[in-house]
Each structure stands twice: as C-alpha cells, then as structure tokens.
C-alpha cells in the first residue's frame, strides 16, 4: 500500500515538472542554439566561440557551447554531446564535424526531430545539414597561402629566372580541408603568377606529420634542416595546419645553423596569437600568417542558425542578412564568409586569438 502511494506521488511530481517545463519553454519563446567545435581549447575555436557569443547576445538567444577535448577529438565524442542536445530539444545545432560521414546519421536524427543543423568550419555529408557556413573556398585559401609565400619570396629576390623550391607541411593526409587546399595549390602553381614556385619532389616535399605535437615538431625540424639557398634545398615552407606553422617558426629558432633569413621564407595557416613572437622577430623568416576571421565565422554560424529557426531563411534562400557582416550569398546551401586574411608584423597585434 505504502509503496503504491509513493509510486503515484513520484509519477505526479514528474508529470507536474514536465508540464511546468513545457509551459515555461513555450512561454519564454527562447531560442536555444548549441555549438559543437571539433574540439575545445585551441584558440582557433575559442575565437569562433567569441563571435558566436557576440551574435547570441545581439539576438537575445541562449548559446550552448561544448566539444570534445583536444586529445579526444573523435566522432564518437561529438556524437555523445549531440545526443544530449537532441534529448534536450535545442532549436538548432552548429557543428564542425571531425568526420563528415560518420556524424551524418546523428545529424539526420536531429533534423528528423525538427532541429536545424548548420555545419561551420568543416562540412558534413550534404544530406545531413541544412546549411554549411564555409569560412573560405579552397581556391581562396590556396591563393592566400601562395600569395603570402610569393610576396616574401619576391622580396628576397626570387622570380621566374631564379625559381624557388617550396614545401608543404600538411596535416594527417585525410582531412577534407587540407586535401582540397593542396589540389587548389597545385592548380595555382601551374599559372604564370606562381610558376616560379616549384614543388620538386612530392614524396618528400609535401609531408603529413599528423596531429601529434612532438611528431609535428620533429618533422618540421627536418624540414628546416633542408632549407637554404641552392637547387637541392628548399626556399619556402608553407604550413597547412594551425599546428604545423608555429612548429616551423619554433624549429627555425631552435636550428643549430639557421638558414639565411634573407634567402628563405616561412608562412602558413595559423591563428595570429600562435605566430606573434615569430612574426615580430626580424631574424625569423616567418613574416606572415594566413587565416580568416574566426570571430566572424562563429558570428555568421549563429546568425545563420537563428534565421533558420525563425524562418527568415530556408534551405532555398540565396542570401542572408548577417547582422554586422552585411549580406552574404548562399549558393547550394553553402554560405561563404570571405577571402583569406593575411596578417604580418603591422597588424598582428590587432587580433586576439
């Protein structure tokens, strides 16, 4: 008897809570958007988060932000977090997937529940998201990277008559972004403007050190050792990941016999903070870095997600009025943020990420 009463009491309490919960959700009419980076804690995504918060405050919505830790940047961890949000019933999810295909079923599950799915930074399988906020096209990224290297190399006396050997330090060899950039770089290297830069031996001059910090460091050290003047040496190294570029700068500093700063160049993708020391150091050939505005990327992702939820834009829309960023074009459910940002000693201090 007593047990039964308790059971009923519990049920009643649960029911009441659920009712109140539902009522308050409906009354407040609050939009909740959840953001899932590839991993937490690197300043790249921290900067995205900053932009996202800015948009959230502007729009008066609730922003949830969570992600796997850096050493556990796997699809499974991302799925675990997504499942939690799906159960909570958030309105929209912004995600930068670690694995474009493996995450798709979970994203589709969210879509089936009426949650809007927006990918940013990296895309997922096309049928598992409503909109992709692309920071940069592969062509624009490749152009930015080659431009940064070309400017520096030209200033150091390289031209069509005096060609330069270049090397690429990529990531693990499976990332969609890096692979697309490498392809675009190859296309650009064949054009007149960049033809004075040559990748001599693909096997050794395009390297894939992976994402282990120490391995990236030691392979970048080997690369620096191969740099210098002369046909059998490398004159410019371009880092394609936010890990590789600072490692190039650091390994140049550590080198026993530093390659001539007047004859070599280092550049690549990284956040300004990660390169600041090297860029400002005149004895280091790392003079510029390439990126896009991470804050704007986060901002645009939240704007897109919010307007999807409110119905201001749909998958068929061709443009979005994105707050302080103004109008951005949407094409094939893909919205592009803009061109590459090249930063150097003059403006590196303006960024804090």
């Amino acid at each position, binding site marked *: 008897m007593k047990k039964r009463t308790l059971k009923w009491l519990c049920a009643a309490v649960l029911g009441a809570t659920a009712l109140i919960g539902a009522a308050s959700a409906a009354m407040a009419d609050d939009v909740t958007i959840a953001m899932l980076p590839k991993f937490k804690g690197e*300043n790249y995504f921290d900067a995205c988060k900053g932009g996202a918060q800015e948009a959230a405050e502007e729009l008066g919505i609730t922003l949830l932000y969570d992600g796997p830790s850096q050493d556990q940047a796997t699809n499974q961890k991302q799925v675990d977090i997504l499942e939690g949000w799906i159960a909570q019933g958030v309105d929209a999810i912004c995600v930068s997937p670690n694995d474009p295909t493996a995450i798709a079923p979970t994203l589709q599950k969210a879509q089936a529940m009426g949650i809007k799915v927006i990918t940013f930074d990296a895309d997922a399988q096309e049928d598992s998201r409503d909109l992709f906020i692309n920071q940069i096209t592969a062509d624009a990224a490749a152009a930015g990277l080659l431009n940064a290297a070309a400017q520096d190399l030209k200033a150091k006396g390289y031209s069509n008559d005096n060609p330069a050997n270049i090397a690429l330090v990529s990531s693990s060899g499976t990332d969609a972004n890096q692979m697309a950039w490498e392809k675009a770089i190859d296309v650009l290297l064949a054009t007149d403007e960049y033809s004075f830069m040559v990748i001599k031996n693909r*096997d*050794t001059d395009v390297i894939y050190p992976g994402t282990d910090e120490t391995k990236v460091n030691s392979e970048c050290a*080997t690369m620096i050792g191969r740099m210098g003047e002369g046909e059998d040496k490398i004159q410019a190294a371009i880092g394609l990941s936010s890990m590789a570029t600072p490692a190039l700068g650091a*390994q140049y500093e*550590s080198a*026993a016999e530093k390659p001539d700063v007047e004859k070599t160049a280092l550049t690549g993708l990284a956040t300004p903070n990660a390169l600041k020391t090297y860029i400002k150091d005149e004895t280091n050939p790392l003079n510029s870095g390439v990126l896009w505005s991470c804050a704007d990327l986060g901002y645009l992702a939240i704007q897109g997600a919010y307007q999807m939820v409110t119905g201001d834009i749909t998958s068929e829309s061709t443009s979005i009025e994105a707050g302080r960023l103004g109008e951005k074009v949407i094409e094939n459910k893909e919205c592009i943020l803009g061109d590459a940002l090249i930063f150097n000693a003059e403006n590196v201090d303006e960024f804090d990420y």
Partner: protein
Amino acid sequence: MNRRKKASLMSTEFFLAVFLLVILVFMRIAAKEFYSKNNFMSLLNTYSYTLIASIGMEMIILTSNIDVSTGALISVVCLLLAAIGKLGAPFAVLLPVAMAAGAFLSFLNGLLITKLKIPAIVATLATTQIFQGSLNMVSEGSIYDLPASYTWLAFKAKLPGGIPASVLICLICTVFGLIFMKYSRFSRKIYAIGNNKTSARLTGINVEKTILATYAFAGVFFGISAVIIGTAGQRVTTTMGSGLEMTFIAAVVLGGTSSAGGSGTLLGTVFGAFILSMISPAINYLGISSNWSDAIKGAVILISVLVSAARNIKKKRVIPSVSGGGVS
C-alpha cells in the same frame, strides 16, 4: 682474444652498434645532406628526449612492469611547465619542477600497482585517461605566446659548435644511468625482481617498496624529458606527449631488454633510441615518403626482437642472481 671478450662481442648491444654503424655509413653514401649541421643537431635533440625517458622506461620494464601512461604524464608536466613559464619562470625553476612533478605522477602509478595490486598495464592505462582528463579540467587547452625565458633551452642554449644543450642534459642522464644500473645495489634489486619476484622476496628484498621507488625514479627521467619536449616552442598544447610512450617502450625493447623484465642493459637502449630517432629524418633525406616511417620503425623492432629471440634459443642465457640475504 680470450673467451670473455668473444662472448661480449656476441651481445645484443654489439649487434645494434654494428647495425647503427651500417645505417650511418649508408646515409653518408646515399644522402650526404643528412649530415648537415641542422639536421644532425635536430636529430640529436629528438634523440635526447627519447633516450632520457627511455632510461626511466628501461628501469620499469626491468622490474617486469610497464608504463603506458608516460605520454600523458609528459603532457601534464608540459602544461604545468607552460603555466609557470608564462609567469616568467626560468629554466633553473622549470627543470626541478618537472622532475618533482614527473616523480610524483609516476609514483601514483607505482601506488596503484603495489598497494592495490592492479596489473601495471591496467593501472597505467587508467592513469593515462586520468592524466589526460585532468588536463582538460584544469586548462581549456593550450597556452600561447610564452616568453623568451620559457623557450631558452630550445632557442638560445647552445653548446660550442651549435650543439643543443639538451644533448648535455642527455649525456649527464645517460652517464649517471649507466653507472647506476651497473654498480648500484638498487639496480640489482630491480633485476632480481624482474627475474623472479618470489625469490627476490625470499632473499629479503622489499619488492613493493622497490617497485614504488623505481616508478618514482623513472618519473624523474620522464620529467626531464618533458622539459625538453615542452619548451620546444612558444605554445604548449594538451597533446605534447601523445603517443610517445610507444617510442620509449620500443627503444627499450629494441635495445635488447626482455619485455618480461629481468634482463637487458641500458647500453642497448642507448643504441635503440638512436636508431628509432633517426629513422624518420633518414627516410625523408632518402626521398622516401614519410608515410613509411612508422612501418619501417615497426619492421626494425620486429626484426631485432626476432634476431635476439633466435640467438637466445641457441644459447640459454645465464641469468645473474642476486647474492642472498645481503640486501635488505
């Protein structure tokens, strides 16, 4: 040439030394640039932190235990160093802090193994997770823009001839290790435990205490290695040591130390660590894709273990026993 000398010429260390010499000569012919100052110095730097940590790993493996948490442990120490380095702590502070932190964390491993009787592989697998997990609790990730005082060891500290100072640290550790492992009473206990725990206990060795001390001692070496790894650049992430434990274990095993413990010398590890450190730059200079480097490392280890196993079958090794009773 007397008999004894002949026997020592048949040792694993001798074979490794010859093997190493062959590769070095081969590189001299095939890729002269491999010996460029820059490449060789950065190779020596990699070798330094690999060997220092491998000395610690060697001691642990000799007691018939293992430590797979070393990579995570090094990550923790690196982040700790970055945190105090950001405040401007010089190398003279960083080094002792790293040694103490390494010893403490490794001591925790020892406690789990000796007091709770958890098998070493399980205990250290668990602490790997705990170390990595705690990193994410205390820090949101990476520490950036570290001052020049922090990167002093990697950027500025050079011995005459441009040799990185990490080589000097490695030399001190190695000489100390070689003498310690050969002559100290403690090392004899380590070998005895690795050979046979029960008989070691019967001879009056406090097995638990010795293993605990071994882990703590090894931790000091892990800490020193972490200083070299952590101060290599002006940013430190939570994955500084990821995956390194396998390289250390491989260096020890390649050096002829039995993975079951009890037999093997540090000298073998000295060669083993060098061979592993040079594979990656060597294949780059030979013009081979770096995708091959892990596979080649694996093959080298496999071949060396097979060769030494084959030799052991031929002549059963006489295991030196500890004189009874005297050590207590």
